[in-house]
């Protein structure tokens, strides 16, 4: 890839965003971040990124799920590879303890739980971007 791949982060936690932004930028990605789901959707529409990192619990509640559903219906956004990075399971473990979370709403969505291991994150990001590139060639 000649141009830097663009990654958009939608997550309400500034400490977490600062952390993974550093990791991704050091690996050569161009990173933008927005901190609430409404501004997040606007940023997606304005300039669809190559990859989206999406949080679940933000704003009023599990708005990441709502945002993913909205993306699915939008032809411009439905194919953006998305890595859902969430602490949801731990955040509401009191409700449904000990079980995995994966809504599978978008065409390509994968799930990673916080806290995130930097190398694992880079591997997953690269794999998702490579797969998207292969789909573009094939398509």
């Amino acid at each position, binding site marked *: 890839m000649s141009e830097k791949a663009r990654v958009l982060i939608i997550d309400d936690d500034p400490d977490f965003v600062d952390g993974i932004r550093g990791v991704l930028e050091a690996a050569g990605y161009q990173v933008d971040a927005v901190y609430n789901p409404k501004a997040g959707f606007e940023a997606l529409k304005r300039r669809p990124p190559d990859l989206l990192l999406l949080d679940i*619990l933000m704003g*009023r*509640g*599990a708005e990441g799920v*709502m945002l993913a*559903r*909205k993306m699915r219906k939008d032809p411009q956004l439905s194919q953006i590879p998305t890595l859902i990075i969430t602490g949801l399971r731990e955040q*509401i473990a009191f409700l449904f303890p000990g079980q995995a979370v994966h809504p599978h709403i978008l065409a390509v969505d994968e799930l990673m739980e916080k806290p995130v291991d930097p190398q694992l994150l880079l591997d997953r990001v690269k794999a998702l971007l490579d797969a998207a590139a292969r789909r573009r060639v094939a398509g």
Partner: protein
Amino acid sequence: MKAYSYFPGCSLERMAASYRLSAAETARALGVELRELEDWNCCGATAYFHIDELLAATLCARNLAMAEQEGLDLVTPCSGCYKNMYFTRAHLREDPDLAEHVNTALAEDGLQFRGTVQVRHLIEVLVQDVGLPEIKKRVTHPLRGLRVAPYYGCQILRPRKGREDDEQPRFFEDLLTTIGASPVDFPLRDRCCGGSLIVTHRQAALSMAYALLQDAIDHEAEVIATVCPLCQVNLECYQRHVNRTFGTNFGLPVLYFTQLLGLALGIPSQRLGIGKELISPAPVLARVGG
């Protein structure tokens, strides 16, 4: 006979059984048919909003969608349920994305929210739809001289729902006057009873209940009338705790407005659930022939 979908709310099943009985009896006597929603679920009270407002909206929307299937407006006697369902309806109508998200979830239960249902509080339906003149015609046992503190509480007035006067409401006083009672001046009538702080911050809730009880006593009320089961529990069931904490000796009965209304309509007190109180209203009611 005008019909409504009816959402009693969790408290009315047992804790506020007398509200359930008296609401049913007075509604029937006034020609209002309350058809209980089948398999309704909890409105989320106040606690759901701490976790996820989208979930809170979804829980309320399930009830709203079931009422829409019946094609009837939704009436509830609980101020908390009223506020939650009223604002869920408003938020879903204003936010199509949210409505669609919630509807995706409701589809799992074969339901859909369209936004056609209206949400009403029982006192509003009786005062506005039946109307005070009609109620007056049916009063057979006016509660002459009974000094009642009309306790509005919070959620029926706040947040503002856009059509009522939250600063100087009169409807409760007017209803009491209509049934022959004497509403006392009750400056704290719209101040909070403590709500769920009774569980999570006992000291704060008791002090809030104390302020209300003292205000009612200072204005020579013989009974407090409420429109909400939680207010009734905080003011009546915890009056003993208030007394011990503040060194007071209150023994002020707290009845649901439907119980007083029912008595005035000539319904026997037992059918209104009178007798289920921890602080008996019998001595006070005996004076007015209740």
